[in-house]
């Protein structure tokens, strides 16, 4: 790729050439070429074999588990995240900064630590798992366990997407609605909520996408039974360990395609959000 297409507009600042060169070189070496290698490798397979491996019954079941559980977890995080963002931006109370810091904990805690911690909590002899097991509910080593881990890692996304929008929201509009006779509930539903919708959607998609690709915090609690509680990222690892490189590549490519669609969708919702927000 020639630098000529990145020809900058006239500027007196120096250093465009070298910094752009380093950026493109490094981006290509660390990210683009490795990702391209996966597409390259799957060419060796041919269409028929690719489809057989990417959509085998076991692979399909793993997509169902990954995408299904991720959707449930993101749906749980949607109202919960809105609640936390609302409380953090609207109310002044002791411990607000601690609450705010706690939201970031799932980002800060390494996934393997989260994984074993959640497993010990929800195992049949754990603090939460034991009372639940008396009620006949099994969380760890079953589908609910996967959802619990995905709720944990997705928690910050909705809060952090909604929070800045809620902070910048002009209180005059709510006041106007109230003066015009709208009740508090109507004001929130008809004035505040529509303005938050794009950011809620962004938060939902970020949490969903993260949960689909997540491995570390889920693998301990999931039980990992093929066709039942096996997530797609784990299936890739299993295939690699059995030297089934073509299978791993095919499933990996499906996941990668999903990531790109997700990235595109998230950019689209953010663009939509900016446009909506800009109109206020």
């Amino acid at each position: 790729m020639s630098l000529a297409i990145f020809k900058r507009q006239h500027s007196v600042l120096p250093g465009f050439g070298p910094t752009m060169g380093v950026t493109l070189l490094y981006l290509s070496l660390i990210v683009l070429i490795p990702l391209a290698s996966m597409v390259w490798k799957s060419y060796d397979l041919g269409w028929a074999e690719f489809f057989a491996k990417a959509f085998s019954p076991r692979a399909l079941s793993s997509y169902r588990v990954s995408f299904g559980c991720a959707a449930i977890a993101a749906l749980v995080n949607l109202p919960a995240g809105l609640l936390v963002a609302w409380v953090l931006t609207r109310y002044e109370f002791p411990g607000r900064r601690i609450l705010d810091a706690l939201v970031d904990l799932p980002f800060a805690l390494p996934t393997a630590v989260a994984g074993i911690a959640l497993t010990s909590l929800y195992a049949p002899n754990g603090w939460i798992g034991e009372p639940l097991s008396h009620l006949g509910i099994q969380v760890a080593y079953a589908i609910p366990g996967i959802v619990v881990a995905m709720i944990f890692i997705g928690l910050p996304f909705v809060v952090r997407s909604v929070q800045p929008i809620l902070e910048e929201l002009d209180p005059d509009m709510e006041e106007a609605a109230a003066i015009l006779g709208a009740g508090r509930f109507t004001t929130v539903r008809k004035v505040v909520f529509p303005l938050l919708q794009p950011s809620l959607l962004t938060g939902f998609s970020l949490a969903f996408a993260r949960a689909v690709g997540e491995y570390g915090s889920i693998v301990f609690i999931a039980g990992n039974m093929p066709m039942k509680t096996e997530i797609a990222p784990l299936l890739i690892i299993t295939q690699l360990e059995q030297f089934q490189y073509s299978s791993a590549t095919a499933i990996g490519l499906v996941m990668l395609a999903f990531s790109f669609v997700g990235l595109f969708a998230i950019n689209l919702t953010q663009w939509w959000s900016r446009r909506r927000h800009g109109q206020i």
Partner: protein
Amino acid sequence: MARSESSRQATGDPAWIRRSLIALAFVWLAAVVVLPLMAVFTQAFAQGGGAYLESIFSDETRFAVKLTLLVALVVVPLNTVFGLCAAWSIAKFDFPGKSLLSTLIDIPFSVSPIISGLVFILLFGAQGIWGAWLSSHDIQIVFALPGIVLATLFVTFPFVAREVIPAMQAQGTEEEEAALVLGASGWQTFWRVTLPNTKWALMYGIVLCTARSMGEFGAVSVVSGHIRGVTDTLPLHVEILYNEYNFAAAFAAATLLAGFGLVSLIAKKAVEHGIRRQKILSGEPS
């Protein structure tokens, strides 16, 4: 920042709603986030302080800590230099394809960590594109330190760039132009004008990058081969101990990681505080 809503009767919520929503938020975060953290420390000390110290200072744990720190020591400076280069070229200049470049930089955020490891197996593994060439030259990348470094570089690639780009963009170019007109060299301008103005964002990015590079599990677990005492980083060491039913030792090692995580969280909050202060000092609305 929370506004003092009590003065705004029309837009404030009734006290009972306010209290119950705050309580609900606390209960939710306690159940989802605080309980797991407490479980880590309780389990780690389940067999007493002596057993805890013994597993923390075991040779294997010490090796894992060293390897983890070594990987961070290689990865963080590389991604910091890259982040500064990317930020300078994207934030200070206009060129076609700018938003595409920003999107490309963000790719590692949206790719599963397993894919981040898998691509390096496909490039450098025994059956990989470069596999035959590498083995004929006796170079080992996957199942060795270079593979772990590469996978970690991929995963933590956007962190510094992501934070510094908007900070440099917000700052504009007038101050640099003034410095250059007054006779400063390009380097002087960067060190004396650009860097001081973006230092908080840079530190924020470095904190996030460091935390992630020490805690990364999925990508590293694909490329490492789990060779004990050779390629097991601290997160992998936790997994190995746990899968051997050595729970107390696994949680003891996990407290080290949780400790790193908590320190990074506190550093992050301190840096956020710094960013807010800088904004207030420079007269921007926060």
